[in-house]
């Protein structure tokens, strides 16, 4: 991990310059040397070095401080270590004030230099990793990369771009697996908040008190086990976006708290008396019909109107079947790389099967099905046989009889209970089979009081 980092040693004394360079090269770094401030600036113009070791006293009108200032002008984040044989408090203060990362007096202990270089490189590695991951994440959730030729989806993506830089609250509605979080991330990444945090919270996964502490944080000693102060998700998302998934499942008390945050952009940590102000954009999502929940007095109407400033309804996959071939190819491309398999396409018969399937779990179910088929596929083309599990998972209506008078809720309860039993209580596996996420499954288990 260290060989790609380059270091520049700047000193007018050749022996000083070359001996430090040689010592650092033994550590695997690529080290350049410069014999004057001017030469150092020229070299910094050509490339950015991870660390600059700069001697404080150099002749020729450009000393170490001046060299450092010019290098920092070219590379504001440069890590510069000033070296001097004549240490005074004044020079140390000047060097640090002008942006030197460290100030060392030569000769210095080898351990000191080694620890210093390691510490800087460790930070550089983390910064680089962070930049790469951020770029990856942004690319993964970019508005233009959403795979769809469905007119409704294209309207949604156009709307996402339009509203990306606003602070207005967004409510995304859609069945499980339709990609609500993906749309929320696309909105975040297309706007001014892209460089700030995107914090996702699943409201269905946690009990009321836990969710309250999760969202707003807590003060030390506010409840048993609160051993230290904890930041809540709203504070973590300051400057960025908070994504509240399954908002329809929050308790009446939390509905009030959330309403206050949306109105005032401020809140109190659990057990706290100090008001915390945040600049957060709220994007909420739900698979339940919130209008109906409002009509049935299960959800506060004032909160609903606060959330529903911009409404996005994502159609289920069965309502945009023209996207199935596109999505199938997209997943082949993505998963071939991840799974290390060379699969090129889906055969015609397999595609027909995919087009005919109902996809109750929507795009997530399709993605899982593609992965499962690709894992077991032995050739370069996915055939209908590779998707035989789809037929087993969803038997044709003729193959079993629906008891007379059975309601949709009863049927759902039966389906969930049977699937959990078949998965021997493994919720993750059961959720995958059902094509829904775990939080939705937990919420349904709670709703139907299914024993586990």
């Amino acid at each position, binding site marked *: 991990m260290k060989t790609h980092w380059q270091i520049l040693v700047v000193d007018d*004394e050749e*022996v*000083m310059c*070359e*001996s*430090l360079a*040689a*010592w650092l*090269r*033994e*550590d*695997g770094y690529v080290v350049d040397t410069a014999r004057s401030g001017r030469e150092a600036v020229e070299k910094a113009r050509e490339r950015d070095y991870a660390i600059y070791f700069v001697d404080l006293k150099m002749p020729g009108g450009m000393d170490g401080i001046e060299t450092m200032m010019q290098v920092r002008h070219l590379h504001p984040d440069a890590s510069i270590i000033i*070296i001097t044989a004549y240490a005074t408090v004044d020079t140390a203060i000047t060097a640090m004030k002008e942006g030197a990362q460290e100030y060392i007096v*030569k*000769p*210095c*202990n*080898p*351990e000191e*230099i*080694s620890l210093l270089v390691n510490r800087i490189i460790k930070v550089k590695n983390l910064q680089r990793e962070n930049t790469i991951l951020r770029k990856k994440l942004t690319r993964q959730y970019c508005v233009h990369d959403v795979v769809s030729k469905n007119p409704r989806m294209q309207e949604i993506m156009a709307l996402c771009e339009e509203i990306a830089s606003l602070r207005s609250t967004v409510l995304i509605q859609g069945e499980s697996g339709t990609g609500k979080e993906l749309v929320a991330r696309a909105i975040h990444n297309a706007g001014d908040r892209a460089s700030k945090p995107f914090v996702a919270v699943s409201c269905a996964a946690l009990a009321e008190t836990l969710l309250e502490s999760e969202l707003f944080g807590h003060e030390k000693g506010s409840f048993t086990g609160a051993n230290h102060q904890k930041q809540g998700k709203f504070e973590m998302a300051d400057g960025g976006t908070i994504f509240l998934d399954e908002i329809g499942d929050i308790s009446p008390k939390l509905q009030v708290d959330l309403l206050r945050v949306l109105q005032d952009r401020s809140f109190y940590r659990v057990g706290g008396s100090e008001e915390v102000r945040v600049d957060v954009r709220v994007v909420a999502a739900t698979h339940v019909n919130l209008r109906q929940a409002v009509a049935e007095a299960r959800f506060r109407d004032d909160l609903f109107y606060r959330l529903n400033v911009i409404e996005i309804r994502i159609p289920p996959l069965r309502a945009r079947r023209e996207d199935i071939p596109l999505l199938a190819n997209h997943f082949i491309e993505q998963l071939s790389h991840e799974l290390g398999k060379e699969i090129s396409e889906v055969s015609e018969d397999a595609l027909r099967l995919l087009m005919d399937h109902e996809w109750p779990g929507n795009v997530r179910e399709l993605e899982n099905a593609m992965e499962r088929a690709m894992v077991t596929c032995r050739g370069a083309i996915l055939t209908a046989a590779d998707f035989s599990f789809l037929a087993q998972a969803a038997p044709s209506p003729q193959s079993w009889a629906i008891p007379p008078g059975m309601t949709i809720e009863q049927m759902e309860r039966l389906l969930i209970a049977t699937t959990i039993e078949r998965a021997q209580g493994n919720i993750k596996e059961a959720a995958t089979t059902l094509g829904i996420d775990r939080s939705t499954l937990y919420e349904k288990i709670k709703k139907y009081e299914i024993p586990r």
Partner: protein
Amino acid sequence: MKYLYVAATPEVEREALAAVMERVATEFGGPVRGMELGNLDFAYDAGRRQYASIPVLEQLLQRFPQDASKLLAVTERDLYIPVLTFVFGQAQLGGRVGIVSFARLRQEFYGLAPDREVFLERSYKEALHETGHLFGLIHCPEGECAMSLSTTVRQIDSKHNAFCAACTAKLRRHMGVPA
């Protein structure tokens, strides 16, 4: 036929020199020859009361034997490079000459009772380390490998008197030995 040379300054104890030569021969698998060096007074810095390693390496290059593949010198003198307070040794990375100082490998240097076993063990490790640099090996992240960086005797003591598997493989490649 090229030889790996181990040269010593006059004050180096011959028994210790022989032990280091044997260890280097075992690890690098080739014939090792001995060589006598003069004293290092020319490299003495009265202000620091230490010996500069760079002029010593320059002199070693001048005295490099025709039949040598690499030349590793050992001395009892305390060595330094200008920017550091001391070095346990120095070698040209992938080059021809290197040197190891025994001075700070002895317990006496730290005001402790002499311990020959500890001293020899440290000498082997540093000789392997600097010779590894001569064959192009850089510092190894594996803390127990002889090629890991040591800036204190505590670190020398915590590593093994051998190369890790990865460094051994690299060494074989650099030496042109089939894996």
